[in-house]
């Protein structure tokens, strides 16, 4: 595995050096000709930097996904809040009270919702083992279908098919605030021991977290919306921030698509950091303006 990574790295470094060293020459020597080509040809020569970036990005994602599917062990670091999930479900069992899980309030085409639903699968497995009641309110019919499938699967895998309750995943309301009002009502009446919020949340984040806090539940949240994170950080016991949500779902589900995508993005992220450092050095010593122009968007 290390060997393949290295070969790919070599390969990609090759592409990168070509971009860095060959490309500026072309631009410098033929900038006038390029301008002509740009206006003449149907192909947008001026967008070739974007083309290279897109190709590098797509190859990284696809290669890592392929490796993940082939069963290569790809390391992902553990995220601190994750242990808390297990503990919190355990606490609910001790107290004999239910666990509330909300996979966000967005449609299933939102990547955060997909991450939320796959974490739900993991949580359902734990509740199945401990026979803890689980309640999952959802806002869209598609999320309902996916959620039910995931939870049922988890109960089957835990060998607790009989205790699976089809109504545990429930369509509540289509409108944002009616959804929130219903869930808040549930929290105050049933007082779940643990509330887990994983997915896309909007203005209702504070309403949910505040009510849960008032009801005395342990709360764990995860969302990629920076504008809602301060409220979760303030009102919940643990919060997964931004991409940690995706990493958590990849870590828990071990789904090759998720893991591969994440590793591919990590790889590109490293390339970006290196590119930035090179750029900063060049700018500081006032050389290689062409390099910075490579990142021009047109």
């Amino acid at each position, binding site marked *: 595995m290390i060997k393949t990574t290295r070969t790919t790295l070599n390969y990609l470094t090759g592409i990168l050096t070509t971009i860095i060293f060959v490309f500026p020459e072309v631009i410098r020597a033929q900038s006038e000709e390029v301008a002509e080509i740009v206006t003449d040809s149907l192909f947008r020569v001026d967008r070739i930097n974007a083309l290279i970036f897109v190709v590098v990005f797509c190859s990284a994602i696809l290669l890592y996904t392929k490796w993940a599917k082939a069963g290569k062990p790809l390391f992902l670091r553990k995220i601190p809040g994750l242990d808390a999930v297990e503990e919190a479900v355990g606490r609910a069992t001790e107290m004999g009270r239910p666990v509330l899980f909300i996979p966000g309030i967005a449609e299933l085409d939102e990547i955060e919702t997909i991450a939320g639903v796959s974490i739900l699968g993991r949580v359902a497995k734990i509740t199945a083992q401990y026979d803890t009641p689980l309640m999952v309110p959802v806002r869209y019919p598609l999320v309902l279908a996916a959620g039910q499938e995931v939870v049922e699967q988890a109960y089957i895998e835990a060998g607790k098919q009989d205790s699976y309750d089809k109504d545990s995943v429930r369509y509540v309301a289509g409108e944002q605030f009616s959804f929130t009002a219903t869930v808040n009502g549930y929290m105050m009446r049933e007082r779940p021991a643990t509330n887990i919020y994983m997915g896309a949340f909007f203005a209702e984040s504070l309403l949910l977290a505040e009510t849960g806090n008032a009801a005395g539940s342990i709360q764990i949240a995860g969302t990629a919306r920076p504008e809602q994170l301060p409220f979760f950080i303030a009102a919940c016991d643990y919060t997964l921030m931004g991409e940690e949500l995706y990493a958590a779902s990849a870590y828990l589900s071990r789904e090759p698509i998720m893991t591969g995508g994440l590793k591919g*993005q990590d790889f590109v992220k490293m390339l970006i950091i290196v590119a930035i450092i090179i750029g900063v050095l060049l700018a500081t010593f006032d050389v290689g303006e062409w390099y910075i122009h490579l990142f021009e968007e047109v």
Partner: protein
Amino acid sequence: MRTSLPIAVAFISGLVLVVAFFFRDDSLIGSLRQEFIVWLTIIGGFTLLLGVVSIVRVSWTAVKRRKEGWFYKILTLLGVFAMAIPAVLPVSWSPLFGRSDGTIYDWLFNYMQSPMMSTMFATLAFYIASAAHRAFRARSAEATILLITACAIMLWRIPMGEAMLNMIPGDLPSWLNTYVMGGANMAVQRGIIIGAALGAASMSLRIILGIERMYMGKG
């Protein structure tokens, strides 16, 4: 057929839009892209109607089966039809129909829907205040940094607070704008934007290639 056709459709439509980006607008693929974009606005428009149909169905079932709160669902149904019917009737029948100034549709929007939407959000000010009182605690170093920055920003953005900050020597307001908002905050937002963009791009790639199919309703 049930899965392969949709995957082929997603692949072709996605690929055309990606490739067309690298060609001039007046090329063949450029015009195909434009056609696809027009189609996208048309087909996508129908998805909005799906949501409406769902609401009507759910409310209707609740009323029919006399579920708890069915009376309220009648109001929802009334709301839908009061807004929709006058809007779709031809303007030539009456100036009250259609969607322009002075129609029923416009009136319902201005005097009912719009004020209700703004009130819903306005209640959040109350909740934030009560959360400020009970939830926002300096439990850790991180939470302390968050709270101090938040309070400084809140002061800076109000005239009274700005006057207070100006009493401290060293032009704090412009310092906050340059180094906190335009410096540290900007850098983090940029990091988050790059990360989120990579995530969205990788999701898009998987949809185009048919690896990700959860949107079809299957895991």
